């Protein structure tokens, strides 16, 4: 089991979400974050003064995956989030000790698969097939 967290551009969230759903990863947590990577600082202007905006807005996605899903998840994120310029973000993979589903008390791999995973994935694949 691995905990995968990734930082991506806010405007790449819809394609990344679609790619993850197609890959069968449907349990995700999303946070709006700000941070500093390699990109240029942004300058804002307020009443004529120029202010440096040091941090860029990003989206952080966290998901816990069982081993067979790890590579698929990473590939899905990279393919969907890459624009080729500085600021595309990073993926962090950490080992995960224990997982518990609160509703049932299931442990580890049994707790990892959301009950609706198959429906969500099927729908995502249908959408992808259509467009």
């Amino acid at each position, binding site marked *: 089991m691995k905990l995968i967290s990734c930082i991506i*551009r806010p*405007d790449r969230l*819809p394609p990344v979400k679609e790619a993850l759903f197609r890959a069968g990863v449907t349990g995700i947590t999303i946070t709006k974050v*700000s941070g500093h990577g390699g990109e*240029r*600082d*942004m*300058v*804002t*202007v*307020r009443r004529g*003064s*120029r*202010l*440096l*905006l*040091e*941090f860029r*807005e990003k989206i952080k996605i966290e998901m816990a995956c069982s081993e067979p899903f790890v590579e698929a998840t990473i590939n899905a994120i990279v393919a969907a989030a890459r624009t080729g310029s500085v600021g595309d973000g990073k993926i962090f993979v950490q080992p995960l000790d224990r997982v518990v589903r609160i509703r049932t008390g299931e442990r580890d791999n049994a707790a990892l698969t959301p009950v609706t995973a198959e429906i969500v994935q099927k729908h995502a694949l249908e*959408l992808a097939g*259509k*467009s």
Partner: protein
Amino acid sequence: MSTTLRSLGTRLRTNWQDPLIRRNVGLLFLGKAIGLFLVLSLMTRWFLPALLDAQAAAPAPTSAPDPMASVNAINTVWTLVAAFLVFCMQVGFVMLEAGFARSRESVNILVEGIADTCICGVTFWLWGFAFMFEPGTPWIGTTGFALQGLAPTYGATGVPLLAFWVFQFAFADTCSTITSGAMIGRCGFVGDLLYSVGVTGFIYPIIGHWAWGPDGWLAVMTPISFHDFAGSTVVHTIGGTISLAGAIALGPRLGRVFKRDGGGPMPAHDLIIGAAGGLILWFGWYGFNPGSTLSALDTAGIGRVSFNTTLAACSAGLTALFYSYIRTKKWDLALTTNGFLAGLVAITCPCYWVDPVGAFFIGIGAGIVVVWGIDALEYLRVDDPIGAVPVHMVAGIWGTLSLGLFAAGKYGAPTPTGQDVSTVVTGLFYGGGLSTLKAQFIGSASITVATFASAMALMYAVKATGTLRVSPEGELEGLDLHEHGSSAYPEYMISGSESVILSVADTSKAA
């Protein structure tokens, strides 16, 4: 006291030793001196001679007829109060547009609304008013540029020219702000300035002259002239049509997926601001319609117009509310707001000539056509973020035509002292036959087609300069940061320190 003074002296002395401060203070005072010099030279060039002339002419004979004798005081106050209410619609428009857009383009909408207003004021003073409201040819007014050489009151209204100008400026400004509605989110600011001059300086006044100018060809059409009481066509259809042309020329926002492609409209970022803006527009409409009598002494008229305005908005809002519920099983706020606005747009043309029953049904029609208009745009893959085209163009056309159906045949025209019922307007349903409907159709169709053609030419001309649409990077970043360098909600953006103020030297590397 003395210690305060002494510390002040010390601070001044230390500051004065800093070369940067010395240079900046020097520059500041140099700027002020240049400005003062310019103002003084302008004053001596124009103001002083006029002052001297006035002093010389002060003891002129007072027996000359007073040029303001024909002014009607109560009508003037009525027109001005209405003008201020119409101006208050600007607040409604920027709130409605900003609320229904995404947060990253809010500052852009606010700056555009303010800049459009300012551009409109200057162009309408210099030539817009002359094009629109002064005699000339049936196609364009040709006298009174910069309001020079005009009579002290406008026509036979008894309203001073400048008061009438303020009222009509507010109308022109409304048209210009409607225009930006379907273009928000991707239109560059320079492009906005350029097309604004085209809209408020040329398209609106010239085409408006046809219907509202003293010798416009639609106004003098026989046997029945085109009627547009407060501007369903002149203000709203023109504004909405230009908006449509702009949205077509721009193309949809990045990431906008249409309903037939499995997507839907992008979510509004603040429905509270949006709905409050819609209600402020409703409030402003009480200046728009009743004020267009230009006469408070037509008491029955202004009462009827206010009543019809209210009733049509209510029935249109209800229609859109229930229509949205039937379709989606949810009570839709945005659609209801668009619905009552469509009712207001529709009743703007016929408000003086219809009775309550007519107003009620005009509102119902508006509530339906606005939903159809939204569907049609979605189907045609035209991205209109706030619904400017369905509300203003589609409902404007419906309202204009509805006069030909619902005109009650009892009302003629307002006069400065009452009302004139020597010629009444009668619609199809009240036994007037098709003649009024035909006149309304000619007016609405010719103005819509002419506006669409000229607006497409204008938008593609601006597009050819490369300023109409921002770069894809700028659009994804958001117009607020890209075009204006500031976010509408700066406190929600995390910054490293309170604020790092860059000096002039730093900006070159970070900009």
